[in-house]
């Protein structure tokens, strides 16, 4: 009954799983990470190839080969086309949205696989754990799908996702709980009555979608990255559940790898923002907006690109603090050029990277790597913080919350978050377009500090102005 081919195929599947694990292991260093990614690709090729071979050999298919093979090949080509388009054309600044979209797509795929396998097996007897796993897959998958769509929309700042749900928190939570209970009831009914499987499954999916929407809409845009990482974890769990549906350890292994990855990133982000996961997910929603701005900003000093050029031109040690604004302005190349100019003049240039600068973990690192900055120049929070008193000029470009000294006080939305101690540097230049607050929505006393001067304007343009002025300086 068990054919030799089956055995070989299954062992190849396991090989694919091993390759995934090895691939992620290789990700532990930038030097080997590219190779690790390639291992992942090879694993996926093996897994997909084996699946195709299994289908190819299937008798039922060999009789009515044409349609099914066309479907498969067509779908693969279509997917490859869209996927590669996305991969090639996406801007590095849009990574959070892209990851959200991929999450959603993955979740939807899980739902569809579960649906197809439940429908196709409609007349055959179905195993109970297949039903349960299918239901779970449908639930998790649809929550992931809609949740990711909302997240992507919010990150892209689409107007549609901006209006808040006009419901008090308690009712919202109750509603969510009810929907969840409904889902679980559907799964239960599907398993026990075993009759209206399709109907129940559709119910699960609809409820899951609603749940995905109501769970994510009230969460603020700044917290979206956390939600995305969590949904990433869910999409992995959905894949693992699918693994129980089709009885393939490779799916279980890879799914739980992804699940673990998502949950670890979620927790690291929460830690770096000094918030608990629960407060992100169900938190008060609207942060009280601080309205003493004018008072705080009474002593703000403006500066010009020329005087900044003079300042940095004769500095020994310059540290750039990039933030979300650098991503928005796409100023990474300009910054890197300025840094090279400074280095030629003999200064030491470093970059202070806060763990949650930008909109996703490691966001700044990717942008700066894109601009050919060597990663030995990128200093993490704990590396650079003790050195700030020896820094001549700290240039804050588009960062706000991550350098906000309010974090050291009690009772503010950012309280307790570890920050970059920029205010200890000898001189600080802050480049941003206005005095408007960052994502946490609070005023930043740093801007009004004695050693701080503000350079108002678009990040890229300003940095380029400084570069030009520096060249004229000779």
């Amino acid at each position, binding site marked *: *009954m068990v054919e030799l081919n089956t055995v070989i195929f299954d062992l190849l599947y396991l090989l694919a799983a091993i390759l995934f694990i090895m*691939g*992620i292991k290789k*990700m*532990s*260093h*930038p*030097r080997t*990470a*590219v190779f*690790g*990614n390639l291992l992942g690709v090879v694993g*996926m090729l093996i897994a997909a190839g084996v*699946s195709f071979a*299994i289908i190819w050999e299937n008798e*039922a298919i060999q009789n009515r080969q044409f349609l*099914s093979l066309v*479907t*498969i090949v067509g*779908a693969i080509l279509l*997917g490859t086309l869209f996927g590669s388009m*996305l991969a090639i054309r996406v801007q*590095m600044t849009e*990574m959070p949205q*892209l990851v959200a979209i*991929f*999450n959603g797509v993955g979740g*939807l*795929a*899980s739902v*569809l*696989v579960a649906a*197809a396998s439940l429908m196709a097996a409609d*007349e055959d*007897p*179905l195993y*109970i*754990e297949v039903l349960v796993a299918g239901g779970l897959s449908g639930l998790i998958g649809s929550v992931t799908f809609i949740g990711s769509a909302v997240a992507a929309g919010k990150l892209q700042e689409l107007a549609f996702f901006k209006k808040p749900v006009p419901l008090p928190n308690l009712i919202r939570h109750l509603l969510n709980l009810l929907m969840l209970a409904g889902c679980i009831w559907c799964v239960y009914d599907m*398993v026990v009555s*075993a009759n209206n499987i399709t109907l129940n499954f559709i119910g699960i999916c609809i409820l899951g979608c609603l749940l995905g929407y109501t769970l994510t809409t009230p969460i603020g845009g700044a917290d979206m990255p956390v939600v995305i990482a969590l949904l990433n974890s869910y999409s992995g769990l*959905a894949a693992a559940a699918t693994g*129980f549906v089709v009885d393939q350890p490779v*799916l*279980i*292994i890879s799914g739980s*790898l*992804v*699940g*673990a*990855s998502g949950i*670890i990133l979620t927790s690291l982000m929460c830690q770096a923002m000094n918030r608990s996961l629960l407060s992100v997910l169900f938190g008060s929603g609207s942060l009280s907006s601080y309205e003493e701005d004018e008072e705080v900003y009474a002593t703000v000093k403006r500066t010009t690109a020329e005087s900044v050029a003079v300042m940095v031109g004769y500095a020994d040690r310059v540290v750039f603090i990039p933030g979300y604004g650098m991503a928005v302005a796409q100023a990474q190349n300009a910054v890197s050029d300025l840094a090279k100019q400074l280095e030629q003049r003999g200064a030491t240039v470093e970059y202070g990277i806060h*763990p949650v600068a930008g909109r996703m973990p*490691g966001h700044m*690192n990717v942008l700066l*790597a*894109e601009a*050919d900055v*060597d990663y030995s120049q990128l200093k*993490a929070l*704990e590396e650079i913080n003790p050195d700030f008193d020896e820094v001549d000029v700290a240039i804050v470009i588009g960062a706000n919350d991550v350098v906000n000294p309010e974090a050291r006080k009690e009772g503010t939305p950012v309280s307790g978050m570890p920050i970059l101690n920029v205010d200890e540097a000898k001189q600080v230049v802050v480049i941003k377009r206005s005095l408007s607050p960052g994502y946490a929505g609070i005023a930043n006393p740093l801007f009004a500090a004695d050693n701080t001067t503000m350079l108002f304007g678009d990040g890229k343009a300003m940095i380029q102005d400084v570069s030009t002025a520096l060249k004229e300086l000779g």
Partner: protein
Amino acid sequence: MKKQINTKASGWIKWPGLCVMLVAGFLVAQEKVEQTNQPNDSGVTVNQQAVPVENEPENTEEAAMSITSTFTMDRYDALMAGIAVFIVSVFVGFEVITKVPQTLHTPLMSGSNAISGITIVGAILVVADCVKTNNTIAMFLAGLAIALAMVNVVGGFGVTHRMLSMFSSRKKKKKATQS
């Protein structure tokens, strides 16, 4: 400091995670048990496999009695082993991923996204069932699933590669020697 974050993080993640997993596994198992106990009160043990395609499934009363086929001990073993795989893999995941440095967290996210495109295996395999039962809608869904999973795979690995090759210093050195 960095160490501390890691330890703390894994601390609070692991326990609830494990509990949820265990509870889920238990629920799954529970459901099964209830179900299997019901039709088998009569003491009849049905050992019917869904696999052999050659023998057409006989429409005996047992098969008609319940659409869900009976749970054999072997099947149960397989499920338990599956749960074991899940648990151990979660451990591997934690161990391996806590070693990835902060710098690479964005590529890690997109890369793990690509790996979750492994659902493509399920999507392709399900086509066989669709053909067998001649279910066109299911076939369409499966095709869509394949396409979506493929977007995930190609897009995910592609963009990860793009990002990671920015990090690799080789390119930089080449440029440096050029200029």
